[in-house]
């Protein structure tokens, strides 16, 4: 399937499946609120009345209630959505780019380059990603957002590289590749002009599922204080703050948690549906 | 001779692209008598394997056998059986040899165990007794050093030996009917003859009726008593073997014979049947062979009747069989 026909027919195909449709709608709503919501909502960092308006249950004026610093929970959830989606999206972009690059090179060039790269990837995969992140992030006092995105991105490409390498190995003896080589195409050209477009399917799936993984990881890091730094709102940070009032003011922790759940679930359902659609073995 | 198997109006349908069901086997009827060998001949896609699977109710979902079908085994109605009664037929009254022995044997179990499994499912014997019987069966199918071979895994055996193991499995519960689905297709030519010999010997020794499914007319001669030719889900001609070979009446049958290359006689151009086999989703209306038939004429637009062209030889065609060869009609 050509690169340009992919999006249209893909979305149409996905729309037909009820679960994928629900996922797309959910993500659409969350993204729309993240982009367009903040102007209509109070400032997520504002603490208007810590004495009088703290820990208000959901009601008029505060659909999701307020936290112990009288900050509006809905505003913070939406603000958190904005940050989490942006961080996840950018981080995954970095991961997919590096992963595709490494996978292409390893799979196509083969030999010692392949062996060395794959040994490294194997070792990197043996270390749970969270631990890598903990080691890298614990140095900072106050982690700059750009650094967070970059670190998340550079720690997430290992699996993708193996995936892409697998695809390249599968395709490298196909006629369209050997044909290009016979015509004297340079190796870079073969890789990027011929092989890469044919890996977009699995890459798309990996990227989608990767977004879900990053959202969960980032929430966890924020919970530990290593992710998105206050006063920026983050779902993980909100849950951390809510620990003290878990039972007395459940809305402070339920809503951010549900936000994560809904987003990651939608992303995973979508990724699932995508992987069914791009399966090369489909008859 | 008594009939051990009677199949009437067998219809097997699958869901088609637009939601309606498509009949891959469409009104097949035949019978099998004790000790007789019936060959079911046809190209791939004509529905012969599905017919065989139907006898054991093993049609894969989403396919299903339509209710107007009848399959009678002796006096048992196969389509009405459930549970234990159905399992009592599988293997015990009808044994099946599957097409590709590499994929039809479980790769993680020893072949002896796979044969013994078939025995233990139907006879209350001990494991050791079952193993003994399995070894005997391996010897019967002509495998040398059977007790050692019984401990082999499928991938350690050659194609011919695996097929012999499949035969042994089919015979394990001593069925009265053997269904052999393309038993030699996956094998080298030299091995094919050996396997057919084995089958022949066992059949006469045990007095079994055999349904031999194949696309190869060559293996039918001298081994089958009767032949049924299948095309596009239907039987188009049925006759005793000698009769069919002497006087193929249906244009499709004739086409099949003509496309067999001959080693002797004058060297002529091969005459394949023009066109391709239609898929079940697009059976032609009326006579299904019409688009490819050199004798097609006006009535062929309607469903052709089944009529006798000779004693015990029937075909599904509008043409009256002349006394003689239709081939002379060009």
């Amino acid at each position: 399937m050509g690169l340009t026909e992919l999006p249209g027919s893909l979305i149409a195909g996905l729309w037909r499946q009820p679960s994928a449709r629900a996922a797309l709608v959910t993500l659409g709503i969350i993204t729309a609120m993240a982009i367009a919501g903040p102007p209509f909502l109070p400032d997520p960092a504002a603490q208007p009345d810590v004495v009088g308006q703290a820990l208000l249950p959901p009601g008029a004026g505060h659909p999701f209630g307020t936290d112990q610093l009288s900050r509006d929970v809905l505003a913070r959830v939406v603000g958190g959505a904005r940050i989490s989606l942006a961080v996840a999206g950018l981080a995954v972009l970095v991961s997919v780019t590096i992963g595709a690059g490494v996978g292409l090179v390893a799979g196509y060039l083969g030999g010692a380059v392949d062996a060395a790269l794959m040994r490294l990837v194997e070792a990197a995969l043996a270390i749970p990603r969270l631990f890598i992140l903990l080691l890298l992030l614990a140095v900072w006092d106050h982690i700059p957002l750009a650094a967070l995105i970059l670190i998340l991105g550079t720690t997430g490409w290992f699996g993708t590289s193996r995936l892409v390498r697998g695809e390249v190995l599968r395709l490298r003896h196909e006629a369209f590749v050997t044909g290009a080589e016979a015509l004297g195409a340079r190796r870079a050209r073969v890789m990027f002009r011929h092989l890469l477009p044919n890996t977009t399917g699995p890459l798309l799936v990996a990227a989608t599922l990767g977004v879900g993984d990053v959202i969960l990881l980032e929430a966890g890091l924020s919970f530990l204080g290593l992710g998105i730094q206050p006063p920026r709102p983050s779902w993980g940070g909100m849950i951390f703050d809510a620990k003290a009032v878990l039972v007395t003011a459940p809305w402070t922790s339920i809503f951010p948690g549900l936000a994560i759940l809904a987003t990651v679930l939608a992303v995973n359902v979508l990724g699932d549906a995508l992987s069914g659609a791009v399966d090369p073995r489909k008859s | 001779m008594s009939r051990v198997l009677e199949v009437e109006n067998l219809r097997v349908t699958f869901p088609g692209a637009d939601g309606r069901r498509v009949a891959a086997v469409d009104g097949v009827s035949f019978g099998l008598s004790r000790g007789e060998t019936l060959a079911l001949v046809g190209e791939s896609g004509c529905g012969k394997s599905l017919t065989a699977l139907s006898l054991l109710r093993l049609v894969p979902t989403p396919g299903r056998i339509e209710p107007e079908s009848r399959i009678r085994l002796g006096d048992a109605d196969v389509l009405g059986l459930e549970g234990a009664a159905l399992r009592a037929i599988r293997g015990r009254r009808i044994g099946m040899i599957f097409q590709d022995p590499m994929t039809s044997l479980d790769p993680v179990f020893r072949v002896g165990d796979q044969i013994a499994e078939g025995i233990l499912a139907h006879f209350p014997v001990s494991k050791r007794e079952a193993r003994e019987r399995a070894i005997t069966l391996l010897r019967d199918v002509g495998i040398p050093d059977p007790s050692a071979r019984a401990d082999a895994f499928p991938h350690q055996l050659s194609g011919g030996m695996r097929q012999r193991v499949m035969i042994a499995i089919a015979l394990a519960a001593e069925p009265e009917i053997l269904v052999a689905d393309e038993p030699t297709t996956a094998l080298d030519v030299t091995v094919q003859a050996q396997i057919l010999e084995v089958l022949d010997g066992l059949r006469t020794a045990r007095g079994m009726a055999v349904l031999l499914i194949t696309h190869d007319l060559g293996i039918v001669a001298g081994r089958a008593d009767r032949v049924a030719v299948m095309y596009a889900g239907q039987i188009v001609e049925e006759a005793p073997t000698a009769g069919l070979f002497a006087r193929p009446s249906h244009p499709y049958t004739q086409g099949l014979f003509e496309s067999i290359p001959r080693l002797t006689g004058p060297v002529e151009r091969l005459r394949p049947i023009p066109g391709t086999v239609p898929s079940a989703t697009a059976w032609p209306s009326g006579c299904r062979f019409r688009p490819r038939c050199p004798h097609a004429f006006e009535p062929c637009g309607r469903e052709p009747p089944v009529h006798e062209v000779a004693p015990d030889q029937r075909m599904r065609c509008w043409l009256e069989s002349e006394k003689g060869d239709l081939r002379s009609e060009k």
Partner: protein
Amino acid sequence: MSRWLLGRLLQAVVTLVLVAVLLFFLMRLAPGDPLSRLGADQQMSALEIERLRERYGLDQPILRQFFVWAGGVARGDLGVSIEYARPVTSLIAERLPATLLLGGIVLLVNFTLGLWLGSVQAVRHGTAADRWLTAVSLAGYAMPSFWLGLVLAALVAVHWRLLPAAGMHNPLLPPDAPVWRLALDVGAHLVLPVLTLVTVSIASVIRYQRRALLEVLPLPYIVAARAKGLPESLVLRRHAWRNALFPVLTLAGLWLPILATGSVFVEAVFAWPGLGSLAAGAVGSRDYPLLMGTALLVSALVVLGGLLTDVAYAVLDPRIRWA
């Protein structure tokens, strides 16, 4: 076969060495060195920091530092924890059993309940039960483990007071109480952490088993087994499961990273005295030797897990064992 085994072992060793290299340089990649924070945190004088630097060997060239560290690791010395002022190895040894207990039970539940549910889904492919199970297991996977832990703790432990919310033992229980009482006590403390970890991780097992079985069930040898007259349950158990085992075995090897990650949060939330909470705490105090030590241990276990899986595969698949 034994030659292959040897090769595989060698491969594992190489991977471990690479892991060590990666971990070491990973940490040094981050700007500043481990001690630079101490100046701000604990208000040490520049001289004291300099002395500490010397003591930890941080003033040496980096390659030298690596070999010193690697040599220590090979001897079983993982350094000294900055926060606890104790050898890292003794800390790990102290906390490992609790994590193994928790992880082991989670593994057990996942691979029994998960395999069963996956089979149910495969056999009932396409039915409502299949879709529901997919939805539920995916939802569990999408939950942040720490959030689920907190919600469960708040609900079950605090609000309904059914189970303990933290720790591994009831501090009021005397150590000389009968064994079964002690066991029951630990068991009660295990319920919520296990429930949390299982919920967020069982989806992978269910999906793997479902897919593996779905690939095996239409295969010719399954049809052939039915043709012998075997009851469906036997066909499923003996032929289908056995062949679907292999992909699931691969999953068992990948299991450790998932478990390790989940443990960090769940142990922290439930104050379970294991490696996970140790690591979580080390983050707050920037205790590098401790973090490194735990990361190294977990990675080693992952490599070991992968090795064991490959060996199991080779042993169980006759096509490999008797090639």
